[in-house]
């Protein structure tokens, strides 16, 4: 009897049915960000399982506010709302449904009637990046600097095996990049969906995943997971051959931010602005991440490498500063067509703060290049150079903080 029960239990568990714990949106009409030539008569949401209608199951918003939806009905797997005749413009749909498993699932998407639909991250009610998002963006920059700058330092500056602390720093950078990326994505989704945390847990993030931002999140997560695996293999097998591909992948996938930010999405964006943005970010990562390696790994652990590392890093930093300046000036001209925009717009004022801090960092780096490097080349060391290098990297990190605010601000163009 007991054996029969066990066999029955196993057979019952093995029978196929369907996947996912709660209702998943399969398709919508209009579809995500669709541009319609005429006003739709209905808005239809098709789920993968039966759903129950909730009050305010479908809410329709124009750019001016909520529109009345006269009738909403649940029909099997479909949730259907009759909509009034819509004028030309962008519209936002916020939906909620009681899933077969008892969870309230929610989501948002946009469409346009004879007009371009905004991304769901710019749906009606979304307030744009918050202060928390700015801090998360900063942490993202810092972790990218640890990875890209660390690997760049090993391959372009040190050119020899570095102690385990290098791998630990780079590994922390990869781990942070993955987790901070997830936090950034969820925070963006929270703003787009306009849901309290408990409901956000069952929010449908797929419309956000389909935006440029979402595609960048997907690509960067996968890219940096691969980077993490390669860095780990290099450490485990003592074969630095894995670090080259890791560096190239990291450098390539940093472009995710450039391909989903102002340089790709705003007016005037082109491949040139995307390339400039990527070069700007990559140079900053190489510079700041390299400084961290110099201060945390080379100075305390490898006294014999101080001199050659300092000289080689000085050359790399000079190139990075040149790229930073060229790309930065080009992007500033692109985003601020009027010089007066620098002090009349919020974006311009943040840029001014950033330029001031960058000037301080460049001056600090210049002192190292012109005063410290010749002494190191001659005598091998300079008193308190490590502390001074740490100071320069701290200023670089503060520049990244301001850059995070700048990236999340809206340029006037």
């Amino acid at each position, binding site marked *: 009897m007991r054996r029969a029960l066990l066999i*029955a*239990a196993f057979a*019952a*568990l*093995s*029978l*196929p*049915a*369907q*996947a*996912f*714990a*709660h209702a*998943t*949106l399969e398709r919508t009409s209009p579809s995500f960000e669709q541009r319609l030539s005429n006003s739709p008569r209905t808005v239809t949401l098709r789920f993968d*399982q*039966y759903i*129950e209608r909730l009050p305010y199951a479908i809410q329709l918003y124009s750019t001016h506010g909520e529109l009345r939806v006269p009738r909403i009905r649940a029909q*099997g*797997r479909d949730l259907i709302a009759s909509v009034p005749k819509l004028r030309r413009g962008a519209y936002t749909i916020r939906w909620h449904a*009681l*899933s*077969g*498993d*008892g*969870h309230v*699932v929610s989501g948002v998407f946009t469409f346009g009637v004879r007009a371009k639909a905004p991304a769901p991250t710019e749906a009606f009610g979304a307030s744009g990046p918050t202060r928390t998002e700015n801090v998360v963006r900063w942490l993202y920059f810092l972790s990218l600097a640890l990875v890209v700058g660390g690997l760049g330092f090993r391959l372009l500056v040190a050119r020899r095996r570095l102690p385990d602390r290098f791998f630990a720093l780079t590994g922390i950078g990869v*781990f942070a990049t*993955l*987790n901070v990326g*997830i936090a950034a994505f*969820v925070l963006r*989704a929270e703003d787009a969906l306009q849901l309290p945390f408990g409901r*956000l*847990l*069952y*929010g*449908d*993030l*797929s419309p*956000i*995943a389909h935006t440029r931002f*979402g595609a960048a*999140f*997907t690509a960067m*997560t*996968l890219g940096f*997971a*691969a980077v*993490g*695996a390669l860095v*780990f293999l290099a*450490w*485990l*097998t003592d074969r630095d051959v894995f670090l080259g591909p890791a560096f190239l992948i990291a450098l390539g996938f940093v472009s995710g931010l450039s391909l989903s930010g102002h340089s790709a999405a705003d007016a005037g964006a082109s491949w040139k602005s995307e390339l400039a943005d990527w070069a700007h970010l990559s140079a900053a990562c190489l510079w700041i991440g390299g400084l961290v390696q110099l201060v945390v790994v080379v100075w305390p652990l490898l006294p014999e490498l101080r001199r050659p590392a300092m000289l080689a890093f000085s050359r790399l930093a000079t190139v990075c500063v040149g790229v930073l300046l060229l790309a930065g000036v080009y992007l500033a001209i692109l985003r601020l067509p009027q010089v007066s925009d620098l002090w009349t717009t919020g974006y311009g004022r943040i840029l001014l703060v950033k330029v001031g801090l960058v000037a301080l960092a460049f001056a600090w780096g210049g002192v190292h290049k012109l005063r410290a490097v010749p002494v190191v080349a001659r005598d091998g060391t300079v008193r308190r150079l490590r502390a001074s290098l740490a100071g320069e990297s701290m200023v670089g990190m503060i520049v990244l903080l301001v850059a995070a605010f700048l990236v999340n601000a809206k340029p006037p163009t």
Partner: protein
Amino acid sequence: MQPPAEHVHWLFATGLLLLGLCLLAEAVVGTEVWRRRAWRAYLWPGLAFALGVFMWPVMTFYTNSTIHMLAHGAWAEVLMLAGAVELALVRGKLHHPAWRLAMASAFLVSGAAFLVHEQNAWLFQRSAFLHHLLGWTLVLAAVFPLVRSVRPRSQTAAAGFALTFVVLAVFLYCDRDVAPVFGHISPLAGPPHR
């Protein structure tokens, strides 16, 4: 175009089954015999690490809910980290005995992720049942890697550790969501549609 979620579950179930069978073979023949070929020592930790790497696409492509995304992210990290630590221990890169607690911690974190991401009662539907079962199995089975960390030669701990993966694989092969649990089906689930 995404594969159905159950296919992904089956793929990972296959990975866990292979991992469990490797561990079971080691438990049966003994570590000395199992490691006569040096590469065998890296087999199961390498599989765990690879499963972690392959969990990332699951996290990024299945974004139908935040909680699923976060849970899959947690499993990806835990599998990668636990696999990496075991690989490093085999390779001799890590020596401190505390590292041996990594697998027990991974079990606890994975189990907690299963239990937290399932908010329905045990008998609500099959997925709820299996998520509770998977979660509690992992939490309770954490005792096996814990014992292994203090008594590496314990046959019971080795066999229990290996069988845990086999059992987890069977559960994952069975994971379908709004299907009935032993005849029960939620009235909210509606009639099956495929």
